[in-house]
C-alpha cells in the first residue's frame, strides 16, 4: 500500500521555499489559472465543415467542456471528423459548462427533442426513465474487451430494473496533489488521515494550509464522501438501503466528522467554505495550499504555466488511509445516455462502441484525465496504462503512475458499496454532505446531531425514489 511519497525516492531537488515563493509561483498560478495563452482558440462548438461530400446521417453529441482544452480541440477537429467520414455520418458536437448539463438535459427531456448522445459528469440516474437501455452494446464491448471497471458498473447499472441506463465512457481518479517541499519541511506524511490531521497545523503554521473544501461544489462532494468511506461511514449498503444512521456506519461517520473538524480548526482557514470548483485550483497554483484533493487538472495547470518550480514540486498520491479502508470516489464519471427521443440511435450506439474500442488515444490526449470505462480498452490493461503514464515527461518522472494504482484499487463510485442511485444523485446535487461537514466544522451542530439529521433527509429521499420504482 505504498504511495507516491515512498515509491519515488528521487533526489531531493535543491528547491528552497524561497525559490518557490518567488514570482515564479505567481506565474504558475497566473498562466495556469487564467488559461494559458497558448491554449487560446476554442473550437469547441459548432458543426464541422465537410468539404468533400455530403454525409448521409447526422449525429448530435452534447458533452462537457473538458478541463483539458486540448482534448476538446482534438476531439472536435480530428476524432469526430474521422469517425464521421468513416461512417458516413455528419457529427455535430456541442460543449457546455459541466454545471449546466443537468438543466440542459432536463430541458431536452421536457422538449422531447435534442441531442442524440448526452454526456453527464456523474451517473444520471434521475434520467433513467427517459433513456433507452444499453445492455446490448455493453455486452458487445464486454465480449471484446473483457469486463468493465467496477466503478463503471456500479455507476450505470440498476439492479432493480436490470438495465444499463448509461454507457460508462470514462472516469477520472481523484488523487491527492501536494507540495512535497512543504511536507518535507514539517516532516509530515499523507499516508493516513491521522498523519494528515497531525501535519495540518504544522502546515498552517508555515503559511501553507491544507485545502479540503466544504463548500457547495463538486470537489467538496467527492472528497468528503471519500473521507466517509475511509472511516467506514457508508451512506448505503450493497442493497442501496440507507444505513448511515445506524451502527458502525454511524460511528464511522461521526469519527470522520470529528477528523474533518480537527483538520479545519487547526490546519485550514475559513476559505474552504466559500469555494467554487475552481477555488482549490486557484489557491494551490498561487502557492498557498500545501495539499488538495482534486483531479489532475491542478497538476496539469501547473505544468502548463511553465513554472517548473511549482509543478516539479507538485506530487501525486493516493488518498490517505482511514481506519477502515483506503478508498476514494472518482472525480468524474462520464456516462453517455441515448435519449428515447434520439433521432439516430444506430449511429449513436456505433459511436460509443467505436470510441471505447479505440480509447488509447483518448486517454493520452486528455493527458491521462480520462480513464476508459473498460480497462481492457487499452491493450494490456492496467499494467499497460501504468507504462503509458510513466512516459509523461514532467518532473518528477513517473508521478502519474500512481494514478493507475488509484484507479485500480482505490477508486469507487458514489454510493459505495451500493450503486449510484437517484437518491445518491439528489444528495450530491443538494450538497447535503458538505452541509453536514461544514455545520460540524463551524460548530453549528455536534457530529451526532449532524449525522442524525443527514440520515433523516437521506431516508426521506430514499422513500421518494423507491416510490418511483428506481431503487
Amino acid at each position, binding site marked *: 500500500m505504498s504511495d507516491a511519497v515512498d515509491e519515488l525516492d528521487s533526489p531531493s531537488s535543491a528547491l528552497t521555499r524561497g525559490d518557490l515563493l518567488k514570482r515564479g509561483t505567481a506565474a504558475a498560478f*497566473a498562466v495556469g489559472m*487564467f488559461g494559458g*495563452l497558448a491554449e*487560446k482558440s476554442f473550437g469547441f462548438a*459548432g458543426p464541422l465543415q465537410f468539404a468533400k461530400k455530403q454525409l448521409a446521417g447526422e449525429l448530435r453529441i452534447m458533452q462537457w467542456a473538458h478541463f483539458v482544452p486540448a482534448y476538446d480541440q482534438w476531439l472536435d477537429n480530428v476524432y469526430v471528423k474521422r469517425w464521421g467520414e468513416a461512417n458516413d455520418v455528419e457529427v455535430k458536437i456541442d460543449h457546455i459548462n459541466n454545471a449546466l448539463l443537468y*438543466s440542459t438535459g432536463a430541458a431536452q427531456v421536457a422538449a422531447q427533442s435534442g441531442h442524440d448522445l448526452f454526456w453527464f459528469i456523474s451517473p444520471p440516474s434521475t434520467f433513467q426513465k427517459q433513456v433507452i437501455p444499453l445492455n446490448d452494446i455493453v455486452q458487445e464491448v464486454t465480449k471484446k474487451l473483457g469486463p468493465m471497471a467496477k466503478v463503471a458498473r456500479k455507476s450505470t447499472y440498476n439492479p432493480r430494473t436490470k438495465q444499463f441506463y448509461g454507457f460508462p465512457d470514462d472516469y477520472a481518479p481523484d488523487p491527492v496533489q501536494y507540495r512535497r517541499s512543504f511536507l518535507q519541511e514539517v516532516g509530515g506524511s499523507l499516508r493516513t488521515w491521522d498523519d494528515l490531521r497531525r501535519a495540518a497545523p504544522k502546515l498552517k503554521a508555515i503559511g501553507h494550509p491544507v485545502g479540503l473544501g466544504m463548500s457547495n461544489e463538486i470537489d467538496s462532494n467527492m472528497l468528503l464522501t471519500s473521507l466517509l468511506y475511509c472511516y467506514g461511514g457508508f451512506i448505503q449498503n450493497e442493497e442501496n438501503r440507507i444505513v448511515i444512521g445506524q451502527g458502525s456506519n454511524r460511528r464511522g461517520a461521526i469519527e470522520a466528522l470529528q477528523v474533518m473538524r480537527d483538520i479545519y480548526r487547526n490546519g485550514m482557514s475559513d476559505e474552504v467554505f466559500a469555494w467554487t470548483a475552481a477555488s482549490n485550483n486557484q489557491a494551490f497554483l498561487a502557492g498557498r495550499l500545501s495539499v488538495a484533493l482534486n483531479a489532475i487538472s*491542478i497538476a496539469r*495547470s501547473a505544468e502548463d504555466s511553465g513554472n517548473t518550480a511549482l509543478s516539479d514540486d507538485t506530487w501525486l498520491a493516493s488518498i490517505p488511509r482511514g481506519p477502515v479502508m483506503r478508498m476514494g470516489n472518482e472525480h468524474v464519471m462520464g456516462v453517455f445516455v441515448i435519449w428515447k427521443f434520439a433521432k439516430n440511435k444506430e449511429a449513436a450506439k456505433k459511436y460509443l462502441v467505436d470510441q471505447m474500442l479505440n480509447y488509447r488515444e483518448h486517454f493520452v490526449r486528455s493527458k491521462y484525465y480520462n480513464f476508459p470505462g473498460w480497462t481492457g480498452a487499452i491493450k494490456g490493461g492496467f499494467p499497460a496504462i501504468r507504462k503509458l503514464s510513466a512516459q509523461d515527461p514532467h518532473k518528477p518522472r513517473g508521478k502519474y503512475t500512481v494514478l493507475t494504482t488509484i484507479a485500480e484499487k482505490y477508486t469507487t463510485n458514489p454510493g459505495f458499496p451500493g450503486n449510484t442511485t437517484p437518491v445518491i444523485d439528489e444528495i450530491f446535487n443538494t450538497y447535503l454532505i458538505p452541509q453536514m461537514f461544514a455545520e460540524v466544522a463551524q460548530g453549528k451542530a455536534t457530529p451526532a446531531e449532524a449525522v442524525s439529521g443527514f440520515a433523516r433527509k437521506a431516508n426521506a429521499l430514499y422513500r421518494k425514489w423507491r416510490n418511483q420504482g428506481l431503487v
Partner: protein
Amino acid sequence: MPFAIFLAFPFYFALVTMFKTNLDLANVEHSPYLYNDLEGGFHWDFWNYATTEHVRFLFEDTNYPRWLLNTLLVGAAVVAITLLLAMPAGYALARLAGGWGQSAGVAIFLVYLIPPTLLFLPLSRLITQLDLKDSLWALILIYPSFTIPFATWLLMGFFKTIPQELEDAALIDGASRLKAFGLIILPISLPGILTVVIFAFSLCVNEFIYAFTFISSSEQRTVSAGIPNDLIRGDVFFWQSLMAATLIPAIPLALLYNAFLDRFIKGFTGGAFR
C-alpha cells in the same frame, strides 16, 4: 454620495482589471486598484504594465462580437413586438375599459411573480414543437412575455394622463380613433414610449435562463448565456476577459439610459398611477 461610490466601484474595478496582466492579477499582495510591476511597485506610466491581451482574446478568440450582435438583435425585435402589442392594450385599458382596467393592470403585474427557473421546462417543449430550437427566434418569441405586462401597465398609466379632451376634439373633427391615436396621442407619449423601450431592452439583456436553455450552439447565444459558458471552463475563470465582457455592454447602455433619463422621468411621472 457614498452610495454613488458603492454603486460605481465594481465598475471602476472591472475597468482596471480587464487590462491587468496575469502576473499582476495573481499576486495576492498587489493592489487591485492599480497596475503593478512584478515587485508590486506602482508606476505613473502604468500603461506599460497593463495589457490588452485579454480584451483581444475576448474579441478574437471567442464569439463575443457575435453575442453582442445577437443580444442587440433580440432586444430590438422584442422591443418592437412589445410596443406593437402593448400600445393598443395600454390604450384600451386606459381609455376604453373603464373600471376593470385598474384590476387588469394589477393582474398584468402578477405575471412577473412566476419564476423562469420553473417555466423553462414547459417552454422548451413549446419551442421544440415550433421548431425554433437553437434559433434567436425562440427568444424573440418568449421574451415579450415578460416585457409586455410591464409595458402595458406603464403605457396604460401614461395614456391616462393625456387629457381626454385632446382626443375628443379630434374625434369631433371627424377623425377615426386610429387617426386620433396616431396623430395626437403618439407624439405626446414619446417619453412614455422611450421608457418602455429602455425597460424592455434592459429586461432582455438581463435574461439568461431561457437564453441558455433554448440555444445550444455557441454562435447563436446572447451575451448573458455565452459568457458564463465560454469564459468559465470548469476550473478556470478567465477573469480579465470576464471583466471586459461585463463592462463593454454596460457602458454604452448606461450612456443611453442616462441620455434618456430626463425623458424617462417624464414618462414615469406621467404614467404609473394617475
